[in-house]
């Protein structure tokens, strides 16, 4: 509450520089900039901005250090790995991998979770208790183990990672949407729609869904960072994406044994993960505070 008052009534003595500072604090410019620079541009324009092919290396150019170290060159700005592949290019393509996996996984789990949540909240009764029991159970399963077992049995691939992440995430959407639906369905306009002859389906899709979209967007944003972390952890453990893919987690795993001789192979992809997740978390927090204070405890 205190925040809102101070923001709504800027003090009269504010100078120009403090206005800029407040602007920076009020809008998440910094995380947005990192995000665009680290994730969106590399992911969308990977073939244009990457200097080399991420899959093809030259064995003569193995383990070249980054340009500021002795033996480094401006050709490979961040050095090369043990197969002579350019680290920077792999990080850039890695952004594409991370973004694709997280967007698809969140989309799939979001749809499943939202549908179940709306149905559960709208119809209530036995449907509701079955769905909610499922949610409780799914939340009490140990995430990483379930993921490990699933991917161990299905084998490492894009589909596996997306299936694993969707299985883990749907319940959060279901719980959120169900809660909101319970509140919305008591409001007058739902009863009026019913009297006017709208079907259950129509009410759920056209009257309830638009009212939960705000919360859904906030939750989805908050989860992108989590999904990127999860995917890179799985890949690092050898239970995520196939070995040859330029995924950030795999690159860190590749560089693990080289930490004594070639630190750059694992450090740079790690920094990429950190910056991306950090800025996504900041952005998510900001969205939550500004658009959906109800989600405070999420």
């Amino acid at each position: 509450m205190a925040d809102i008052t101070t923001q709504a009534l800027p003090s009269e003595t504010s100078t120009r520089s403090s206005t800029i500072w407040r602007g920076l604090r009020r809008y998440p410019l910094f995380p947005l900039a990192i995000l665009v620079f680290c994730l969106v541009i590399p992911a969308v324009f990977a073939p244009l901005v990457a200097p080399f092919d991420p899959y093809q290396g030259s064995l003569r150019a193995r383990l070249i250090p980054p340009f500021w170290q002795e033996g480094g060159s401006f050709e490979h700005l961040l050095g090369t790995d043990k197969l002579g592949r350019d680290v920077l290019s792999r990080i850039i393509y890695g952004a594409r991998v991370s973004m694709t996996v997280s967007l698809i996984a969140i989309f799939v789990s979001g749809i499943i979770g939202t549908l179940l949540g709306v149905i559960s909240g709208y119809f209530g009764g036995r449907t509701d208790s079955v769905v909610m029991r499922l949610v409780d159970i799914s939340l009490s399963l140990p995430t990483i183990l379930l993921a490990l077992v699933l991917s161990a049995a299905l084998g490492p691939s894009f589909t596996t990672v997306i299936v694993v992440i969707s299985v883990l995430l749907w319940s959060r959407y279901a719980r959120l949407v169900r809660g909101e639906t319970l509140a919305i369905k008591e409001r007058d306009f739902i009863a009026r729609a019913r009297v006017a002859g709208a079907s259950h389906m129509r009410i759920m899709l056209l009257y309830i869904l638009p009212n939960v979209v705000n919360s859904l967007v906030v939750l989805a944003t908050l989860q992108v960072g989590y999904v990127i972390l999860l995917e890179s952890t799985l890949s690092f453990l050898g239970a995520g994406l196939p070995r040859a893919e330029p995924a950030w987690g795999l690159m860190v795993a590749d560089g693990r044994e080289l930490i004594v001789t070639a630190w750059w192979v694992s450090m740079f992809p790690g920094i990429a993960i950190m910056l991306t997740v950090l800025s996504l978390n900041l952005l998510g927090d900001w969205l939550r505070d500004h658009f959906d204070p109800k989600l405070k405890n999420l």
Partner: protein
Amino acid sequence: MQRFIAVRVLQSLIAVLIMSVIVFGLARVSGNPLDVMLPIEATQADYERLAKHWGLDRPVITQYFLFLGNALQGDFGESLKYTGTSAMELVGQRLPATLQLAGLALLISAIIALPIGVLAAVGKDTGWDDAAKVIALLGQSLPGFWRGIVLMWIFAVMLGWLPTSGRGGIEHMILPAITIGWFQVAAIMRLVRSSMLDVLDSEFVKLARVKGIPEWKVIWKHCLRNAGITPLTFFAIVAGSLLTGSVVTETVFSWPGIGLLVIDAIQARDFPVVQAVVIVFAGIFILCNLVVDILYAYLDPRIRYQ
């Protein structure tokens, strides 16, 4: 209260059962389970021996109950990588190393997180608070496996203060424990901060101040004791992240616990060991959740009636 406990216990049992169905099912859906369970170089005799052990000639439902019955007695079969050792024995051998590491991690994170959380609450909206926020944010955003590698690089490779990996004395445990504990620091600290803020506002603190008790004593004795209860109940999430942390951290530091065991087993397609570890891990995790929920309901009656 009894009803609440009964429902929660039932839910936990179902969760364990579901885990067992998943573990059982995954070995079956991907073709002949023996192909998944046996390494490529397995002989015909291995196939026949296992087929008989798991009763593969009978219907799937019977097979599942056979598996469940064996599992309940702690029998997941013999490890395929370390022949002659049962999967459960391996888990028993490796479990102490994991618990040791997890214990130290928890201790370190509590020692670091409590004072920072208190300072952040007392100095709300000051530099302390901002610093605490940064720590919390970094804790959530740094991937665990990379955190371990960075620590290893700085303290073992560049400074040479600590060994890079393996198991030995206390010096082998410091880096892995910090790697695991880091995430908890962020989480515990935020909780201590928010519950301290609530307590600092309450009447008995005002009374203590009015009575002239020195400020440090009011904060560190009167407030912290009351604010400490909330983070304690947070143990379920901590247990979960300790599990995840141990799988990842043991891989990074080659710490011979069950986290490393399960990763090795997955790579070697040693399915009996994978099943044993997953069920044991899941059991511990679900039990922690159950205990905490009951504890919480006991402390906060509102939860029982939801």
